[in-house]
Structures are given as structure tokens and as C-alpha cells.
């Protein structure tokens, strides 16, 4: 399966390598660098690169490449999914996973990689299990360690590490028991020039933050479960119970985890919470005009916050001279991206930005207008209308604190102009 892994930064430095079978010289990465050079941006590097003897399967996360080397036929998605999972685990351990954090915690990373795969085949990928084996670093402990001279490693290995619920460690104990649910929906949409919706869909997920003692058995039900017809679950969810009764019954892992993801497809009608009125025009005289207004559409009385607009301009635009009624704008002369950070939208005074765009002298006006990408957040609203009905706990005597938070965000929300 996976023979070796190289971790590479965007400038082409191999700063970590791990081999699960025999050692593969790192010159194999040259093929990757070739592909990197050929691609316009790092996103464009193909996920699978064929070399005469090896296959390089790579993922890009946080401007770090994780390049797995395989020698034989393997389902590529298997490798990709594993690499992403590995990065997710690093994030879980260190809070973020950048080049700096990997370098800082290189021993833990190396140990993790050693536990994750055995002979190139995943061995333990549940973060609950891994945390039993290798303690995640935290500030408090590292201070304590410096004082007491102890290490991150648990001195005795847990004897019954593999509890009968593989995703949950045994013997969890908290003084206060909390379970928080974050229900987030991301709205993806393409809106055409005239303001008509080309396609819109919702990607929702429920993230769980569980600090519950013992072996709680939870049951979560929704008021309108029929909305959820395209769902994927964390392995802890009992699929059969869902199919029969449309309730989620599960023994949660300890800590953070994504309970379910759902998708409301483009076939159903999605109410879009914002609209954008835009007018971008270029004249032949090396200049253009721009006027953009953003406003709320269907928000059920909630305010739209953290609104940001991003316009990747054509290469011939040199500078912008704009005035915004609200928020700040910036134009990056290298990438030619115009950012407008609007903030909160007040329905009585709609934010507007207008002004002139100046073009490279002598360049013809760009034939295409930019596509506007919109970011926003609406808290306490799930745009699909899904609602948690109740969350019950069985198997434990205590009454935990339960909380649900809803939020709607823009996913890939694009407006063609």
C-alpha cells in the first residue's frame, strides 16, 4: 500500500520523510517538483503523478504537500483519504497543522506516523485510540514536564487500550459533563449575471464536542429528519437505527468529532440569504467602473455577519480607486484580487462600493468580468430549516449540560458578472 511519505513545503523543501517498508531515496520527489513547476498554482498539481517505478499520490493542506509513494496498484482514494485523515489527526493534536507545527513537534509527528500505518496499511487512525498511546502536547503539560522532568509519553501503557468501542477510550471521567453540538450549514451557489440562481445546494455538518464520563449512549433526533436523505456518518452511529427510526443513536468518541455530514442537493430549492447587485463595466479608454451593493434576502430576521467579497480581477487591471460606504477594501497588485471586508450588513443601509478601475495602459479591456465570491455567516440559523429535537443520554446516571448552536455560512457562493 503506502510505501513512504514525504512532507514538502511549497518552496520544495522535503522536511520530513517516513518509510514504512524499505527506504526510497528522496530523489523520487524530483518528479513531484517537475509537476509543481509545470502547474500554474499549487492547486493544479495533479493528485497522482506517475513515474517510471513509483506512483506519487499527494494532497495539499495548509500549503504543505504530503506525498505518498506507492509501488503497486492501490485505490488512489484510499491513499488520499488516509493522508487527509493523518493531517486531521495532526490538527487534532496540535491545533493546526503547518510546516512550523510539524517541525516543532517532529517527534510526536514521527511517532504518530509510526502508529498510523503498519507496513503501509492503516493500523490505528482513531484519535481516541492514538491519544491513549501518544499523549498530545499541551502547554500545561509541557511546563509540568519541564519542571518534573517527565515526558509526554504515558509511562505505563494502558492495559486494555482497545476498549470494546474502538473509537472511544475507556475510563473517561470528567467533573462536569458537557455535550455541545454545532450544526453548520454551508450554502453553495452559482448565480448568473442576471441574478438568477444557476445552482444552489447545502452542505451541512454536525460537529460534536463531547466531554462525557463513562460510556454514555446518546440518542439525537431531529424535528424534520426527512430533510436528511443524503447523509454520511461517523462510524459510531448505528446505521440501522437511523434507517428504521430516523434517530441517531451512538456512543460518542471523547472530544471533538464530526458526527454527520449531509447534503441537500441542487434538486431542491434552497433559499439564498443574500443578494448582490453589481455593475462592472470597462470602456476602451483604459478604465472601468464598478458598483456593487449587497443586501439580505431571506434571513428570518437574523443579521448577516462577517461578509467579505472577493473579486479576482483580470490581469490588465492595475489599480482600483473605490469608495465603500462600509468596511475596508484592499487590492493586491500581484494577484489582482480585490477584497472587500464588509462586516455586518445593516438592512436599512445596504453596503455599497463604487469607483473606478484603471487598466494597464494600452491593454484592451478584459473580455470577461470577474466572478464574485461571497463569504458570510449567519448565526443561530440553519438555512435548510433543520432542527435538533432532543438529545437523550442513556447508560449513565448524570445529567450533562447540552447545547446546540446553529450557523449558516457561505460555502462556494459565487456570482458571475
Amino acid at each position, binding site marked *: 500500500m503506502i510505501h513512504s511519505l514525504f512532507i514538502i513545503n511549497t518552496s520544495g523543501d522535503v522536511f520530513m520523510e517516513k518509510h514504512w517498508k524499505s527506504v526510497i531515496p528522496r530523489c523520487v520527489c524530483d518528479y513531484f517538483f517537475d509537476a509543481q513547476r509545470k502547474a500554474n498554482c499549487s492547486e493544479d498539481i495533479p493528485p497522482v503523478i506517475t513515474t517510471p517505478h513509483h506512483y506519487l499520490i499527494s494532497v495539499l493542506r495548509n500549503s504543505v504537500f504530503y506525498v505518498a509513494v506507492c509501488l503497486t496498484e492501490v485505490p488512489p482514494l484510499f491513499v488520499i483519504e488516509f493522508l487527509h485523515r493523518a493531517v486531521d489527526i495532526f490538527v487534532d493534536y496540535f491545533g493546526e497543522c503547518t510546516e512550523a507545527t510539524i*517541525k516543532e513537534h517532529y517527534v510526536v509527528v514521527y511517532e504518530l506516523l509510526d502508529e498510523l500505518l503498519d507496513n503501509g496499511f492503516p493500523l490505528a487512525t482513531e484519535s481516541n485510540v492514538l491519544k491513549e498511546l501518544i499523549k498530545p502536547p499541551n502547554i500545561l503539560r509541557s511546563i509540568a514536564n519541564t519542571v518534573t522532568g517527565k515526558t509526554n509519553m504515558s509511562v505505563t501503557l494502558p492495559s486494555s487500550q482497545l476498549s470494546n468501542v474502538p473509537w472511544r477510550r475507556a475510563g473517561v471521567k470528567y467533573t462536569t459533563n458537557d455535550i455541545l453540538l454545532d450544526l453548520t450549514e454551508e450554502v453553495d451557489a452559482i448565480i448568473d449575471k442576471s441574478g438568477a440562481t444557476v445552482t444552489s445546494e447545502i452542505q451541512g455538518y454536525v460537529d460534536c464536542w463531547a466531554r462525557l464520563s463513562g460510556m454514555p449512549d446518546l440518542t439525537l433526533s431531529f424535528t424534520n429528519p426527512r430533510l436528511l436523505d443524503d447523509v454520511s456518518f461517523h462510524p459510531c452511529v448505528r446505521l440501522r437505527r437511523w434507517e428504521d427510526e430516523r434517530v441517531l443513536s451512538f456512543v460518542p468518541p471523547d472530544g471533538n468529532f464530526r458526527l454527520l455530514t449531509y447534503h441537500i442537493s441542487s434538486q431542491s430549492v434552497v433559499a439564498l440569504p443574500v443578494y448582490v447587485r453589481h455593475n462592472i463595466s470597462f470602456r476602451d479608454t483604459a478604465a472601468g467602473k464598478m458598483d456593487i451593493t449587497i443586501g439580505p434576502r431571506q434571513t428570518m430576521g437574523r443579521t448577516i455577519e462577517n461578509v467579505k467579497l472577493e473579486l479576482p480581477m483580470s490581469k490588465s487591471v492595475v489599480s482600483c480607486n473605490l469608495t465603500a460606504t462600509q468596511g475596508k477594501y484592499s487590492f493586491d497588485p500581484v494577484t489582482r484580487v480585490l477584497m472587500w471586508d464588509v462586516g455586518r450588513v445593516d438592512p436599512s443601509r445596504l453596503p455599497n462600493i463604487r469607483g473606478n478601475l484603471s487598466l494597464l495602459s494600452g491593454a484592451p479591456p478584459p473580455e470577461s468580468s470577474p466572478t464574485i465570491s461571497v463569504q458570510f455567516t449567519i448565526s443561530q440559523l440553519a438555512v435548510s430549516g433543520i432542527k435538533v429535537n432532543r438529545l437523550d443520554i*442513556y447508560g449513565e446516571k448524570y445529567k450533562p449540560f447540552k447545547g446546540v448552536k446553529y450557523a449558516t455560512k457561505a460555502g462556494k457562493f459565487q456570482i458571475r458578472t
Partner: protein
Amino acid sequence: MTTTSMDMTGYGGSERSSGVGDTDYAGDVASGGIFTSDYKKYDDLKQMLDSNKDNLKLEAMKRIIGMVAKGRDASELFAAVVKNVVSSNLEVKKLVYVYLVRYAEEQQDLALLSISTFQRALKDPNQLIRACALRVLSSIRVSVIVPIMMLAIKESVMDMSPYVRKTAAHAIPKLYSLDPEQKEELMQVLERLLNDNTTLVMGSAVMAFEEVCPERIDLIHCHYRKLCVLLVEVEEWGQVVIINMLTRYARTQFRDPNRGDNKSTARGDTSTNFYGEENDDEDTENPSPPPLDPDHRLLLRNTKPLLQSRNAAVVLAVSQLYQHIAPSSEASEVVRAMVRLMRSHRETQAIVLSNIASITTQRKGLFEPHLKSFFVRSSDPTHIKVLKLEVLTNLATESNISGILRELQTYLGSSDKQFVAATIQAIGRCASSISSVTDSCLSGLVTLLSHRDECVVGESVVVVRKLLQTEAVPHKDIIKHMARLLPSIRIATARASILWLLGEHCEKVPNIAPDVLRICAKSFCSEEDSVKLQILTLATKLQLSNPQQTVLLCQYVYNLAKYDANYDIRDRARLLRAVVLPSTGDAPSIFTANAKGLFMAYKPPPQHQSTFKDREQFQLGTLSHFINARASGYKDLPDFPEEAPDPTVRSVPEFADSVSPKHKTVKKTSKTAKKFYSSGSGESEDESDESSDEESESSKNDDGSKKESDCSSTSSSQEEDSGSSSDEEESSSSSSSSDSDEESSSSEEDSSGNAKQEQQFESSAKKPVSGKPTKSVESKTKSNLDMLLSLDEVPPSIDTPMLTPSMGGFLPVGAEPSTTTPGVSGPVAAAVAPGYTYELLNRVASGGLAIKATFTRSPHLYCPKMATVQLSFTNYSDEIIHSISMETSDSKLFHPFPSLSNLAVGNTAHATLGVDFCDSSQSASLGILADGRRHGVAIAPRVGELVAPTRMDEATFTQHQGSLRGMHEQTKSGLKLSKEAELQDLVAPLLTAANLWLLQHPQSIRLCGKTLSGGSVVLVVVTVADGEARLTVHCEKLTVASMLLKELAHVIDSL
């Protein structure tokens, strides 16, 4: 690379912890790391490793690992590091392991020094240490230790910890790659692992199978159903491997479900067993589906829920399985899940899209409803955009083409030129595949010819050329227009296309073509090779069609080509000249005569087809499919066999039956499960327990003999009862007593017992499966047992004890289970079974149908809260009763028996019903439908049937007794006994009346159990003094306690 001087400073960790311990010393080393030579630095590290402070060792190891991680050579330190393999500090040890695995290959001799440490660790009581030792040992790629590895693997395969067994499975391919000659022996080990029913092990075992001996598909037969049924429980990575393997398996073992004809109905006869309903459903949808092999169906049904996995690889694996082996009517099941995956990371998207593109070339309709999900977003990376275009083009039909074209049109404005070029090609493909839009597309493309961007123009020229080729009617204007563009176009392919087009249609544009040739001849030398070749072609064609105007030009071009740098062009020129312009001396050859036919022949139009068309040969989801080339190690997916091989090879009979999808197993200890399935052996075990107890007591107890006779009488009556009660029990009761002994010793605490039992299971599974019914039932029992042992989707409720992997203690083999280990409590089989029987429905009242209800006292399969009631239907009427089924208002309280068909006159049939009485003696009413007539009946339990026996030891009993005081305790004293009655005489009647477990106690009778539904502990104590008995019942549930008191008092009284 600049790493050499930077390495130590790059890692903050080393600096931070350098303050620990010996500050001066550590500080020295840190600075030395930067400035001194490599030799010196290693010296310091060696010193640190040799010191007796764990801190320093750890520090040194961390740095060394840092070097290894950066890919720097640290092999010099091997000797110094390996010494520390015996370190007591776990972290040091672990890092040494990591180091060892990396460098052992290079320093084979030194590596051997560490082997004994691993051999010792393989016997460690901690499962993690055993697993870790095996993992490292097997990763050391030194061929000398092959025999040691083999031995270690063989031992670990029998380990009681599934984690260790999983590691053993991983070690198999490692050993195989080290020494392929061990294949035969490894396969034996592998067979043993495949027999393992723990879900943790299964995925890895199949992975090892795929690596070592994928061709031995016959090894899978007897595990096929198990794999299918337990698939949902396997960890996600294992699922992918298993699904891929099963796809291949299904391709070799089942017939093509999409084959129109359905000749062999012989295969269908088994398909009605337990999938009868399913088949009916299909019948309504599809008039005549070819009957699927039930195992084929089983696979499809059990993989479908996995489409909801969070792991994209699993979803794609299921999708490819459905595409490759499902009937085409069911292929659509996977569509939504695949579309959902597209929202994932870009790498996932790329793989999924390429698979979708491949599917859409064959099955257009599947993804059409999701057309909009494939619309391109400006933020997508280019390769994703191109793949989406591919899918959109594949999906284009008459009805949706206008939408697609509108969408494609907007893409033309994109700033990503590669994408625009792909869009133009896509438009061209749409135009050629859908005739109604050809003209509008063509005109659109022609307008693009005057686009400002050169790439766009170039691409459009190529596409237009292809389109014109397919079009029967020549578009003279377009050709003229393109000829006019020629001077301004610099892209080689476009120029070549125009030249070719002119040559092909030179007769239709007689004035333009020679002029173009003239212009091109001028610039011949500066053209690209592909254009030069086209100029030659154009010249030749013109020379043939219009010699008087062009013969000189043609000769000129040939002469230029003759001295070209490219040999291809020189060759071509020579060939053309010989054919078209033979030197005057020669006789006109046959080629010259037919030159026009050679060069101006009709050429078939190019096919505008998806580039994914040729990927059909590869299995979806594979690496080979994605790269569209045969990856090393790729195995072709075999075609379905014409005639399915013998389906009986898979039968480990009733396995799938007993674990039907509705079945919700509940975690119970192994005891119950076993007892339930083979109650006969369970009883004999209890007897043996008892008798051994008796023997020990007989010295004290005068009435030993009497008691023994008592016991034997009960047991004989039991045997009779159980014999009549169910066929299953009957057959299993014949299993040997040694068998039951082993089973009895396999409580969770007893490792040796477990191992033994496994061994035994293997031996039973090795026996030919088509053997006698006893054997089949036996193996079935075991597989169910292991299902219970493995994790299933069961609410781990508190009242049932958790199955925690044992501590790995090596208890002596013959150790008495449970009775010697304190704190054990767990359900056991009924001491007296079955319970009472009564008539549920009188033959007179019903008009011929009599129903008897028997409480079998075994836990119900569906839910442990249910009491199992066996119904015996007897037909006393003169006609056959055609169907018997039941109806209930509350499905939660009942688990209905499967409906019976055809009860012949005078016959008796049995069915098992599960009833949850909710710990009350109120009768449960239900309706029995016999031939459409409804008979209302009520099942009234005695209170003794509402409890289930639970094994407890003395201490637990007393503890429970202590906690159930006050109103939970009810006592009745002064029960008169007949004169000669002894305490022990009361045991049998009491056990008959109440389904409890007898805890041996010299002075009193102690019975214990739990209520079925609520799981509350029930304790009964009977003491005898002066011919009077005193009866005490403890139970949290007051009604149960009082009723049980009344009932048992009555029993004692009546003696």
C-alpha cells in the same frame, strides 16, 4: 541542501528541553551540534546514549529521530542506539524501535542483537507490548530472522488479543516480501486468520490475503457470508480492501446479473429461503429480473449502508462494486453518494470525477438529474474544471443540451486558457453528438475564430476542422474564412488543421488553395514540423487536382523538404515525390496511376468520443483507472462466468440466516450465546459443574447420593423436553461433552480457555462444511458467538457487562472459571428448561388449530429483554391450514415469528416468538391469523418466567443482598415442610418454578437472577430450621418480589 547546519535549531523541542537535567552538558551538545564536525557531534550523542539518565537518552534519541525524519544518515549511531533497546523508559524504547526499523537492513549483524528483546516482549502480559514487539520484529528486513518471524507470527495468530492478531496479519505480507518461499506456510497461517471473526482482525486478514495469495479465491468461499454480514462493523480501511476483494470474488462466482436470458432456473431454488420478500419486491418493479444468487444479493445488500460512510474511499469502493456487479437497475443507488463526495477535498474530487466520467460514458442516465452539480466554479483548479467538462459533455442529451451550451458559453469568458480550450472541445463534441445543435454550435465556433486570444482561435480551428469533417455538406464560407485567418494564426495545430482542410476541399476553393500554398512555401523553413507535413500534403493534393497551377510550387516544396533537418519530413517528401512526380525516365508505376485514389480518398470522420471511453478496461476506483495505464500489480477484473460455479461451496449453512439484518444482537457474555444455541451442551456443562461441586461436598454431606439422583432426574427430564422442543437444540445436544467443557472454560477472564476454543473453532471450520447437520450447527453456533464477541451495533447498556479485552494473564489451563474468580456475574443458561407450557388456543375454540405456548427460558435472539416463547401449532382439522402469521399492535414488545405456510392435517409446527413483558405478569395479547381468520390470544407469563438466571459469586450476592433491604426485601416464614424434607429437596422445584441460577451454599438455598426487561437483580434465599422454611425474596421491583414470593411459597407449601 542547507539542512546540515540548520537541523538542531530548526526544532524548538530540543532547545526547550535542554534545560532539563544536566544543564551545562546539554547546553554544550546543543552548541556542538551547530559548529563541530559530524564526527564530534555523534560522539556527544553517543555519550548521551551511554549515560544512565533517561532524560539524556531521550534527548539524544529525539535528536536522532529528528535526523531520521529529515532523511539524514544516522546509521553510524546504530550500535549506540541498539544498546538502549532494553531501556525501561517506554518512550526511549519506542524511539529506539523506530530507529531500529529504519536502519536494521543496513546493519544486519548488529540488528540481530536486539532480537532476543523482542522475543521476550512477545510474551509480555500487556497486549500492546506484544503487538509492538511483533510489529518491530517483522519490520526488521533481515533475512536471517525469517524463521524467528515465522514462529512469532504463528504464535501471535493464536493470541487472545485481537489487536495482536491484527498485527500478526500485517506481519504476513512483510514476511512474504522478505522471503517469498514461505508462501505455503504463510497461507496456512492466513487461513487461520481468515477464520477469525473479530471485526478488528478481518480487514487486515483480507489485506494479507490480497498481498500474499490473491489467486486463491477458493479460500474465501467459506468466509464469504461472514465477510458480507460483518462488513459494516469492520474498520473503514479494512472495508475498502474487503469490498475490492469481494468485487473480484463476485465476478468469478456469480453470473452476470444483466444478462438478458435466464436459462438456469435451477440456481434460483435457493434464493427463496430468506430473501423471498426481496425478490417479490423486485418483481413488482421489474417484470422479469434474472434471479440473483442469494449470496450475490447478500453482498449488494450489505454493502449499501456503507454509502453513508464518512470515508470517501469506502463510498467509492461500494460505488465501483455496484457498477461492476449489480444489476443495472440498481446501479443508480450509488449516484447520490458519489455526487456528495464531490464536495470533499480537491484530490478526492478529482478521483471521483474521473470515475463519474467513466461511468457516464456507459450509463448516461444515472447522473443526469445531478447535472447542475457538475457546473464549473471559477475557484476550481484547472484539472477539476476539465473533468467536470468531460462529465457535462457526456451527459448532454437532446433535452438538456441548451442548458449545457449556455453554461459552456459562460466558461468561454474564463481567464484560464487551458480551461477555455477544453470548453471549445466540449462544444465541438456536443455539436457532433447531438445533431440538432450542430449548426448553431458551428456558427458559434466560427465567431470564436475571430477571438482576440490566440489559444482560443487555435483550439476553435481544430474543433471546426473536426466538425467539418463529419459534416457531409461542405461549408465553403467557413473554409474561406479560415484560409483568410491563416497568416494571423501562429499555433501549429491550428495552422496544420487549416492546411489539411484546404487540401481536402481544394476543389471547392480552387482559387484560394494554390495561393495559400504559395504563402506557406515562402515560410516553409520557419514552420513547425507538423505544419511542414501538412504543407507537403497540401502540395501533393493540389498537384493532383490542379497540376497546371501548382506543379512548380509543389516541386519547390519537395525540394525544401528534401533538405529538412527532420528525417520524418525528408522521408515523407521522398515518398510523395516518387509517387506524384516520378522522374521522367521511369515508367509510370502503379502508384502514380492511382495517386489520386491514394491521396484524395474518402476519409472516415473522426469519432468525437470521450477520452474516458478507453478506460472501461480498468476497474473503477483503481490507480490504473485514474492514470489510464496499467499500474504494476494491477489485476484485471475477471468477466462473469457463463455458468455460475457451485454455490454450495459457500454454505456454512444458516450463518446468514441466523444473523438476518433485523437481528440485533446484544452484548452478552459468551455464555448466554452459547447456551442459547446449544442448550444441550450447556446443560451438560451445568451438570458437570454441579456434580463436581457435589463431589467436593459429598464428604460433608450425608445425602450426596440422594441429591445426585435428584439431579439426574431433572436433567433427564430436561433432555426429553429439549428434545421435543426444537430441532436445533436436538441436533446440537449431540455435540460432545469435551466440547462443552472447553466452552465452559471460556469466560472472558480465562485466556487459555479462549485460545483453546479458537483452536477448536478452527478445527471445526476445517471440516468439510457440507458435512452432517451436527457440524454445521456447531459452526454456526460459533460464528454467532463470535459475532457477539465482536463489536456490533448494540447499545452497550450498563446492565450487561462490557467485554473488555482481558489483561492477558496466563491462568493455568484447568482453572475453574468464574467460580474462582471473584466479582464475576453474567447471564447463564437456565438450569431447568423449558419452563411451563400451557394451551394458548384450544382446538375447539379455533376450529381445528391448537396452539401451545412453552417458555423455553433461553434469551431471545432479537432482544435480550424478550422472553422466548415457543409456539407449537397443531392442525386437528380436516383441511390444510395455508398460512399462519401474527399481528400485533405494538411491534416493540413483540418480535413476531416468521409466518408459516401450509400446516398439513395432523401435523405440528413450531415457531419462536419474542415477547417483552416489561417485568409484569400481565398477559400480552396478540392476534394469530390462520387462513385469514383472526384468533385473539393472550400469553400470560408466570412470574418465574420473567427472570433470567445470572451467575454470581458469593461476595456479589451478599453485596446485592445488602443493597436490597427494606421494602425491597420480602420475607415469608413458617412454611411447613413435610417431615423428612431436606433443604436440598427444595432446589429442583424452585428452579422449575423460577428461572434462576443456583448459588451453592451449605446452609441455605440461594438463587439469583435478573428480571428480563428491566435487568433488576432478583435474589431468593431459603433457609430451613425446625421443619419450617423461611423464604426471602429481594428485588428492586416490588411487584416482582411479592409475586415471586407468593409463587415460591406456594411451591414449598405444596411439597
